[in-house]
């Protein structure tokens, strides 16, 4: 089947097998390997992306279902060389170690903050319940999400993805 989909701002038209999962389309067909696969039962959330602005586990969506949609992956968050505030917060708070769960964790965190711009610790923990991390014990992830919430006030959303946060791309070693 033929689908047309916009991923991280670029429009693609491809023939896909009806059984192909969105995550396989992203990784294998268009080379968006920043989005990863961590399980086969939709428990881990590593493959989370945004489908028309809502988070979704891309292992649980067929490629044919996203025909005509817009997808944002972790690769499409940084704008003009500036990290998204949630990306920056993950760095600032040491919210990742091996980094494998990080793409999904960041995408889900953004979705969480879009719904609740000022979540308390408990709300963050519940909002990320569907995303597993084996390295961090989650404490710094919770801290990062709350830090990002603080920095993005009054709230998340497309505007927050585009602007502010002065230390541009300020990752150590650059």
């Amino acid at each position, binding site marked *: 089947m033929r689908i047309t989909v916009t991923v991280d701002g670029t429009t693609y038209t491809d023939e896909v*097998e009806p059984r192909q999962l969105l995550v396989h389309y992203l*990784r294998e067909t268009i080379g*968006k*390997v*920043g*989005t*990863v*696969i*961590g*399980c*086969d*039962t939709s*428990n*881990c959330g*590593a493959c989370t992306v945004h489908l028309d602005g809502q988070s979704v586990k891309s292992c649980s969506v067929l490629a044919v279902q996203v025909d005509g949609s817009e997808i944002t*992956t*972790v*690769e499409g*968050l*940084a704008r003009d060389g500036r*990290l998204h505030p949630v*990306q920056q917060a*993950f*760095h*600032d708070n*040491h919210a*990742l*170690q*091996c*980094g*494998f*769960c*990080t*793409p999904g964790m*960041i995408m889900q965190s953004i979705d969480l903050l879009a719904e609740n711009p000022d979540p308390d*610790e408990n709300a*963050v*923990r*519940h909002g*990320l*319940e*569907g*995303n*597993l*991390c*084996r*390295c*961090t*014990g*989650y*404490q*710094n*992830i*919770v801290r990062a999400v709350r830090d990002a919430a603080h920095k993005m006030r009054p709230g998340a959303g497309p505007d927050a993805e585009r602007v502010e946060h002065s230390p541009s*791309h300020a*990752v*150590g*070693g*650059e």
Partner: protein
Amino acid sequence: MTATIEPEVGKARLRKEDERLITGRTRWTDNLTVPGLLHLAFLRSPSAHAKILAIDVAAAVRLPGVIAVITGRDIAQAQGSLPCAWPITPDMKAPPAPSLAVDQVNFAGEAVAVVVARSAVEAHDALEAIDVDYEDLPVVLDMEAAVADGADLVHPDLGTNKSALWVFDSAEAGTGGDVETAIAEAEVRIERTYRQQRLIPAFMEPRSVLVDPTGPQITMWSSTQVPHILRLMLALTTGTPEHKIRVIAPDVGGGFGGKLQVTPEEVVAMVVAQRLGKPVKWTESRSESLVSAHHGRDQIQKLTLTAKRDGTVTGLKVELLADMGAYLRLVTPGVPILGAFMFNSIYKFPAYRFACTNVFTTKTPTDAYRGAGRPEATFAIERLMDELAAELGRDPIEVREQNWIRNDEFPFTTVCGLEYDTGNYEAATARAKELFDYDGLRAEQRERRERGDSVQLGIGVSTFTEMCGLAPSRVLGSLSYGAGGWEHAAVRMLPSGKVEVVTGSSAHGQGHETAWSQIVADQLGVPFEDVEVLHGDTQVSQKGLDTYGSRSLTVGAMAVLKAGEKVIAKARVIAAHLLECAEDDLEFAGGKFTVKGTEKATGLTDIALAVFAAHDLPDGVEPSLDSEATYDPENFSFPHGTHLCAVDVDTETGFVKIRKYVCVDDIGTVVNPIIVEGQVHGGLAQGLAQALYEEAVHDESGTLTTGTLADYLVPSAVDLPHFDTDRTETPSTTNQLGVKGVGEAGTIASTPAVVNAVVDAVRHFGVRDIQMPCTPQRVWTAINGGPTDAGGLGNEAGGGLGSIDASGGAL
């Protein structure tokens, strides 16, 4: 040259590694591709123990996209036998370990055939078309039954299910007294049997391997912790000369010991790629990972602790059954032995005996999992110390303090003959009690107990130590390990003054790039940003022993430091020449050589450029500052700490909620406090998970019933508490950096703290043990008049599956 003024070591540097990882610019093995790549899919045995009568691949071969279907018989010679590098005794029994089973399968999930196809989906589709004719054999699931007379055998050719018996006895070793005498004369005797349930490392990145045989060297990219060990072992296993193999560990998504392995899939991928002359890739599914990647823990611990009535411990006897699973993988037999010297922990036992029987079963092989042997030992002793306190009616911290090595007694030689260099158990415990409000919570506990609150408060203590920095090579030699414990590093001064550091310690999330940069920046006086750390490719980092056992900083970074010292020594000769002075007149600080008492100076950057030009060097001096070093530690390091856990146990439902968790660790000098805290958090999470959530459960036919992340309960953010962490800092004296290692501390310490807390909450119901994981069902059963050990060992329906409920403790 910018001289760094504030030292980098100790600074809370944000990680260099993060930028790629948070933007999705990653190089996980499964992300990689090469022209003409073919894909592999493995057919795995559904039976735990069976003879393979026939495999019919004809239908599979005809399917679209399929290039070849290969069985164990097809590559029986080429695949060799998977290596075990740790023959713990001269008479250890080790069965042949084919990567693809040839005549017999010995655990459910063992690979029996591999499909090679143009795409991964076509390879998977073809698996269903392979027809294997199995003849079932009796399964061997329970360790105690497996070592009984007349037991069914996993490997009939061996004549027994016992692989080895390994003993340490302090009387025989001359390091202490005779434990049987201590038991005979004991005023107090605590006898317990504890079970270390089987766990699964469950790293987040599934394993993946890509082999390209088209270059002058065969290149393997693999999601491995051990690229250097893997290269050597591939050579020894397949007969391919070592210098014809290049191994690359690109980004690796966690390991926790689970990727400290030479896997069947790596060997098969290499053999198939060589046979076809084409590159091949395999990436596992999570279900494949949980059933076929090695498991961890799985011991039955029979323990006797003796003491005087005044609380002074007099002896400790440990008898273990350790489940090897169906085969001996890379270090399988040695994992329980890594705990042999840790059961005595921080306490002054005068007599000690440890005897471990390694047992084969028809289950997935076990091997290293975070802590490897030491969590099991720490759990046993810390549970026993609480039991001793309960027996004596005393506070568990007080009983520990009475028996631990006092700060003024270091260095201290233990009953195992290990010399602990430093430690301050008093300071860590005092700080932990303060953060925890120990006295306040004890008062609340009394009040709620008297009131008969339906939710009872329990307080658990764990004052642990561990041995880190694997390892002095001579010690490994004395334990019959097949390699040394050194690490290699190189420091390269580039003409522009930038620095490349090569380390044999290949990171997979630990932050080596950041920490090593901090150390080198201080040592050479260069900016943190000017240091690039290279690792994980045998063409770049030609030598190393890799990352496990909390060894990277204590051994790997020490090698970096030694290489840096050689760079400075080489530069000193040239600086003296350029400054026209004697070498002894030079001081090196902040990246500059200065003639003592003068303003005359030259920087390392200038010297690097002068060496590059090589126009004006002293006679006979090689035009290079680049240096390498191989560092072999003299002793282990001994991190320690005090962990305190408060749980609320709902006595009506058995539900356990962690209310407060405080830990104060002493890991010596800290290079980067942010990274250290992250390591502690992650370690705690895995230790807590063993106490409350995780267990690999098999049914009566040997099928893993916790084979997905829906059943194997890796905790989510909701399942874990906030951790209050702090540190005391007693530098190690066994290495120049004063570091001790932190990778495993949280995991080793936390499991007994949690279980002690749970038991403490319900001890007044007559409960003295609850098996791990302490599920609501087990806790409720223990409270409500069930057997006091909540299930006992090996007497359950289904033949003693190492679980109180054959349906799965994870429910």
